Each structure stands twice: as structure tokens, then as C-alpha cells.
């Protein structure tokens, strides 16, 4: 058997965890982050024709001339189109899409640097800054919001947000409750119904209340821990922060369909972990296909199951 055709045993060994860890360590950081960012821009783009076309043209150019991914002008085209789209639709652009915009410019600046160390510094500094910023700013906005602190927000979303219906069913909230709440709330919205005192009793459940409070506590504690621990910049605190971030990425983006956000968080985590924590960087590596798998229509499957 030739070297090009390894035996079954060799293939099996290749796909062990150790092999994965070794492979991720051998990847060149700037190149790998550029590829992941291009994939992000193409797969989870801004919902605007200008950016979608630019991202696809950039992907095409990369496939024909792979070296182009190292050129600042290549990334500037993506970043400029993202900037135009964001300016045009700034008030309807989701917060996490702004992070994609910022990150595209960071990649521009990374490739604009000539010195490889400088390139790495651009990525590492920005990855840490944005991880701290995203989580700590989110915690600040959440703690300043009465409807978040009281658990009211998650309870309301468990009833009214269709994205939460399947998750609700998994934790014991009957989808019929959400349907009933939606129907009742429609009375407010119809001009042909006038609700007395503008007040309606929702057919909520105690379980929804408990789940909402648990979600609130889980969300705020996890996010504040990640943000604070990454601020410390110590090996031990970074390690814990990475583990929590991985837990966040693996658990949050299953119910919350903001896959681009999960992807960008995993890129930042990978940048900070790659040279310091081989096993953790391998886990980040696994998180990328996991985020893609989370797009399976599992909500429909769950809602289709007999309870």
C-alpha cells in the first residue's frame, strides 16, 4: 500500500482528538481566521443585496486566486460594502451584525500590517476587546433593564416568540399555551376589537415563570463571568473564561438562531486560545461545525413530536 493510501487504522488514528489538537496547532492563525471570517461573511451575511453580492464575488476571487485573501483591498471591499449597508439600514440592523462590520475592518487592518507580529497583535487585541465588550456591555444593558431583571422578558418570549416555542416544549411548556397567548394578544392589534381597560389576562403557567427566572439567572451570570474573566488576562482566568465561552456557544446557539454571532464569538475565542490552550482551541474548532448543525430544523421536529 502506498503512502497516499493509508490503511483503515491510520485513518482512525487521524481522527482522534489528539490529531485534531495537533492539526489546529499547525494552522497559521491569520490565514485560518481570514478563512473563517470569509466563510462567516458568505454564510451569515448582512441581509442586503450589496453585501451578499460582494461576499460571493470575494469568495469567487478567493477560489480562483487564493493568495488574494491576504490582500487588504480584498477585505476592504467586504468591509466597505458592510459599512454602506449598515449606514443605509442602521436602525433596523441587528446589534450582532455590527460586530461583523467591526470584525471585517479588524481583518482589513490585520492584513494592512506588514509585520507578522503586528498582524497577530491586531487580531489578539481586538478579539479580547470584543469578547469583553460584548459580554460586559450586554450585562450592563441587561442589569439596567427592569423587564430583564424581573424575568418578565424571558417569560414573555417563551409565550410570544416562535423561536422559543420548541425550547419551551422541551422544558415542559405546552405549545398550546403560546398559541393561546398569541390569540389573546391579537385583540390588542385588531382595530375591530376594543379591550376593556387595555388589559388582558394571559393564560401563562408557573413552569414558564420558573424557566424564565432560571434563564435570566443563567444568562446574566454566564455573560458577566465571561466578560470579567477575560478582562483579567491571567492564564487561569483565561482558561476558565474559554471553558465558559465554549459552554455559552454550544448551549446558546441551539435555541437562539443567531448563528453568525456564535460563529464570530468562536473566532475570537480561537484567536485567544490557539497558541496557549491546544485542547480548548480544538474545542473551538469543533464549535464551528456544531453551529452549522444547529441549523437543522430541530424546532419542527420537536414541535411535531407527540407529547
Amino acid at each position, binding site marked *: 500500500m502506498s503512502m497516499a493510501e493509508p490503511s483503515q487504522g491510520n485513518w482512525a488514528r487521524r481522527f482522534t482528538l489528539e490529531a485534531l489538537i495537533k492539526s489546529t496547532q499547525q494552522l497559521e492563525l491569520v490565514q485560518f481566521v481570514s478563512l473563517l471570517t470569509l466563510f462567516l461573511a458568505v454564510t451569515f451575511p448582512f441581509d442586503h443585496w450589496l453585501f451578499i453580492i460582494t461576499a460571493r464575488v470575494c469568495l469567487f476571487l478567493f477560489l480562483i486566486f487564493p493568495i488574494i485573501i491576504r490582500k487588504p483591498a480584498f477585505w476592504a471591499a467586504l468591509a466597505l460594502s458592510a459599512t454602506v449597508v449598515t449606514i443605509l439600514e442602521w436602525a433596523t440592523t441587528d446589534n450582532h451584525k455590527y460586530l461583523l462590520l467591526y470584525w471585517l475592518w479588524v481583518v482589513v487592518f490585520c492584513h*494592512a500590517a506588514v509585520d507578522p507580529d503586528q498582524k497577530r497583535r491586531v487580531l489578539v*487585541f481586538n478579539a479580547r476587546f470584543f469578547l469583553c465588550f460584548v459580554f460586559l456591555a450586554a450585562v450592563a444593558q441587561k442589569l439596567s433593564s427592569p423587564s430583564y431583571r*424581573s424575568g418578565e422578558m424571558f417569560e414573555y418570549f417563551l409565550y410570544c416568540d416562535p423561536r422559543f416555542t420548541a425550547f419551551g416544549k422541551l422544558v415542559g411548556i405546552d405549545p398550546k399555551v403560546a398559541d393561546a397567548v398569541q*390569540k389573546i394578544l391579537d385583540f390588542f392589534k385588531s382595530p375591530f376589537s*376594543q379591550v376593556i381597560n387595555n388589559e388582558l389576562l394571559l393564560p401563562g403557567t408557573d413552569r414558564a415563570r420558573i424557566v424564565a427566572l432560571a434563564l435570566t439567572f443563567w444568562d446574566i451570570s454566564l455573560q458577566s463571568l465571561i466578560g470579567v474573566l477575560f478582562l483579567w488576562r491571567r492564564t487561569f482566568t483565561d482558561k476558565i473564561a474559554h471553558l465558559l465561552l465554549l459552554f455559552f456557544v454550544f448551549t446558546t446557539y441551539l435555541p437562539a438562531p443567531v448563528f453568525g454571532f456564535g460563529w464570530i464569538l468562536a473566532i475570537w475565542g480561537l484567536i485567544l486560545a490557539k497558541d496557549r490552550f491546544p485542547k480548548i482551541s480544538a474545542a473551538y474548532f469543533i464549535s464551528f461545525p456544531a453551529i452549522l448543525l444547529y441549523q437543522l430544523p430541530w424546532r419542527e421536529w420537536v414541535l411535531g413530536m407527540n407529547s
Partner: protein
Amino acid sequence: MNGSSDQPDHQLGFFRYSSRALIICMPIVALVIAARQVYLSNYHGLAVWKGGGMGMFASMDGQANRFAQLFITQSDGTRQPLTHLLRVQKDAIDNALNYPVRRNFLAVAKSIATIEWASSPERMPVVLIDSKGEPAGRASESYHMMAPFRPRSRDEKWKGNIQIEFWKMSYNPLTRTCHATLAQTFAFTPDEVQQ
């Protein structure tokens, strides 16, 4: 290599005086935009989910709890609700609900004024609803249903004012009641919507 050396360590002349600018540029931009978003959401109603802050899942106040009711009002004070909207109008309303300023609702009104609206021949009663969601009689008013008929020709002048009510819902988890509050009413004259 730093910015003071003879050879630049980057390819962008814009940053030739400071290589650190390459590193800190986007964090500064992100902080400024987030501060602006917090200001706009606190003082101008911008939804916390939008505009560059970090308020995803930070508040109930967003598109999930906001809605609008649209009416064409006549000179005699009567008004008819617009019950069937085109996709472009729904998009304009979503935009306005995310950032409920007059300018955005004017865009909704202008979109409405580009269409001829047909009313149903019969008036529909308004039903009173009690707190449990059960019918509790009829209200004093009744409306014709208004639906888009065809694009309005440019020569034809739009008549009637357009009134848009911006509502917000709040939820009290202790009493499990949902309360709707009329946050603001926007009225637009024919001259405004035809500009």
C-alpha cells in the same frame, strides 16, 4: 517596528503615524456607536436589539411588544382602519417600530398614500373584549375594512389625513396581565404625504 521608524509596518498610508491606530481603531468606533445606541434607545425609543448596542435579549421592549394601528381620517372626524397592508408597507412599519420617530412613520404614511384604498361596503362592528379575552358586547363605533386596491395615479391627489397610533405592550409576571399603552399618535396631512 513602530510608527517612528523609517519603514512603515503596514500598507495603509492613513495609519502611517501610528501603528497602534490599526489596533485600537475599531474598539473606539464600537464604543462610540454603542454609546449612541444607548442614548437613542433611552431617549428616542430605538429598540435595544438594533443600532449597534449589546442589548439583545436585554429588554422586552422591541418589536415583540410594539405595534401600530393605521387609519385614514376624513375632515368630518371619522376614521377607517387599514386592515390589509402590502409587503412594502409592513416593512416600513417594522422599521418605524424599531425606531419610532416621526420621520419613519411619515415613510409609512407616504407608502400608504401611493395606493388607492377600497373600503368594504358594510361597516364592521367593534367588539368589546374583557380581560379574559371573551367578547363583552359591542363598542359604539364601527368601521369599514380598508384594503389596497391599486396604485394611485400621480395626477390624482391624496385626500384625507393618515393617523398612525404607536402602541406598546407591557407584561406583569405577578398578575400575568398584559397591558397595552398608546405611546404616541402621529397624524400626517395630505400635503405631507405627497411631498
